[in-house]
């Protein structure tokens, strides 16, 4: 209907002050976000989160037996967080270690690397 279009026209507003502020607030709260996502606002959906750049998911291709052995000796939560960190850093189409592709490592501050 005509007035649907009037009310719901797309109007992305990625750089609103509120969204800038929430990013600062998030950093202050210790919230970790992947570099390739960002909050945005559209009149149609309200606030949301979108990919600021292309995102590709690639699972861990391989871990050396030594790494697995080392991790398995540690506490199970630590093992999981190691996996998350490795996964994050190996998430690239080439499977190579590309820290810039995902600078955030999801390790809780309270644990730290051994």
């Amino acid at each position, binding site marked *: *209907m005509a*007035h*649907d279009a*009037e*009310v*719901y026209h797309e109007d*992305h507003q990625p750089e609103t*002050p*509120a*969204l800038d*502020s*929430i990013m*600062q*607030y*998030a950093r202050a*709260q*210790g*919230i*970790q*976000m*992947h570099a390739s*996502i960002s*909050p*945005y606002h559209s009149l149609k*959906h*309200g*606030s*949301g*989160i*979108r*990919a*600021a*750049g*292309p*995102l*590709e*998911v*690639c699972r861990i291709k391989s871990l050396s037996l030594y790494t697995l052995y080392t991790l398995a000796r540690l506490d199970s*939560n630590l093992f999981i967080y190691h996996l*998350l960190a490795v*996964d*994050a850093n190996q*998430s690239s189409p080439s499977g190579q270690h590309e820290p810039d592709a*995902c600078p*955030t490592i*999801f390790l*809780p501050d*309270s644990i730290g690397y051994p």
Partner: protein
Amino acid sequence: MNLMHVPRSSFLTPSAIPDSFCCSSTKNLLSIHGLLAAYVAYDEAFTSKSGKYAAWKATWPSLDDFRASLPLLWSDRCRGECGPWREKTLELDGISPSNSSEHVPKSSEEDASFSFLPASMLRMLDHQTFKYRQDFHMAISLIPSAENAYRQSPPHAQDSFKYGWCIVNTRCLYYDHPLSPNQSTQRGNDSYLANDASPISPTRAATSNHFMVLCPVIDLLNHTANSTSACKVTHNRYGFTVAAQAPAAAEDEEIFVCYGPHSNDFLFVEYGFVLPGEENTHDSISLDAVILPTINPEQRRRADAKGYLGEYTLFSPAANRGIGDVCWRTEVIARITILAAEQWEGLVDGLLSEDELEPDVEDKANALIRTWVGTMHKQAERSVRALQRIGEDQLELTRLFGDDTNHTTAVSLMRNDRAEPTIIHGETQIPRRRYALVLERWRQILRICQSYLCRDRS
């Protein structure tokens, strides 16, 4: 790939609410929903522009957004309470949730008018309204700043609480991980385990109130019914983690999570939106309002005794491999009107199989179900037709879908601007948005019924 980690220290939980706002003993008397809502509504951490949570609050929808989308904030007329399908209206105080037989539609022959909202939504809405009013009364009775606000201006205090309550209702998450030993427990419960987290679902509603938390940034994520493309939300003792599951997302593509397998009726009442067209792969409609009036008291008693009274569902084709179909409970209740009492109970108890019954039982049951779906189809058809007529008359649309208090302003604005109908004023936007939501939902109901009836015919 992990996209986000939100630490527990950033959550707004009851224990994060200072005693200066509400002491521990009072917290125990309030629902978590009501307590969080009151804090959002009345504490300067949220109400002041320089408050602790001001940056977070700035990303939230406005009260007008909620007024436009959540039926809880619509006028009684708009909610259909004055319509012919509503036999009772809710009282402002001391109401109780209605039972499923309250919203009984009249047949199309006896009544040519229509309902704004489907009966199934009205039932959910009654329950929601009951919870909201209970929380509000508790808040203004027990929390000093709420009490003060109400003393100064009851309408303003109520609007503030409505806003806080809707914020919690639409944005809370479910967090039931045990607290770490060095932190105080919430309300004396400290041993919960769960493997996943999602915005609250109806099945959890009864027990999850205790686990409601507000969580910054993660609350920006919108809903999709597509479980393959939805990000996975998990939680542990450190907080929430959001991980992408889909193989790729293009630049500017929105990232979603799934709030749960919800029908559009549920999404409409709880969150104020419906997924468009046939996008919702969990959509269904309730047939209770057309089936229950056709069952006599004796059959009703027997159905109740066996746990088959109510919750009759017609699935959207999108939710059922492209085929519109009814649930097992509907199949069973159709047979109660066809079979002798002993036969029906034998069937329900598994002592008798369908093969042992007369050969025409299935055909008779299908014909009956078809009649029920046909009745729902007529109601949907009548509503869509009436709404389309209303859509052609902006004044009528604003009158019917506007709020009583703002109605005069809205209408006068529209009269002044009739020469330029494309100009949208604040007060006319809200009725239009309500109208668009209601029309979309009735169109979906019509399509779901049509799909079943066409399938049955072929």
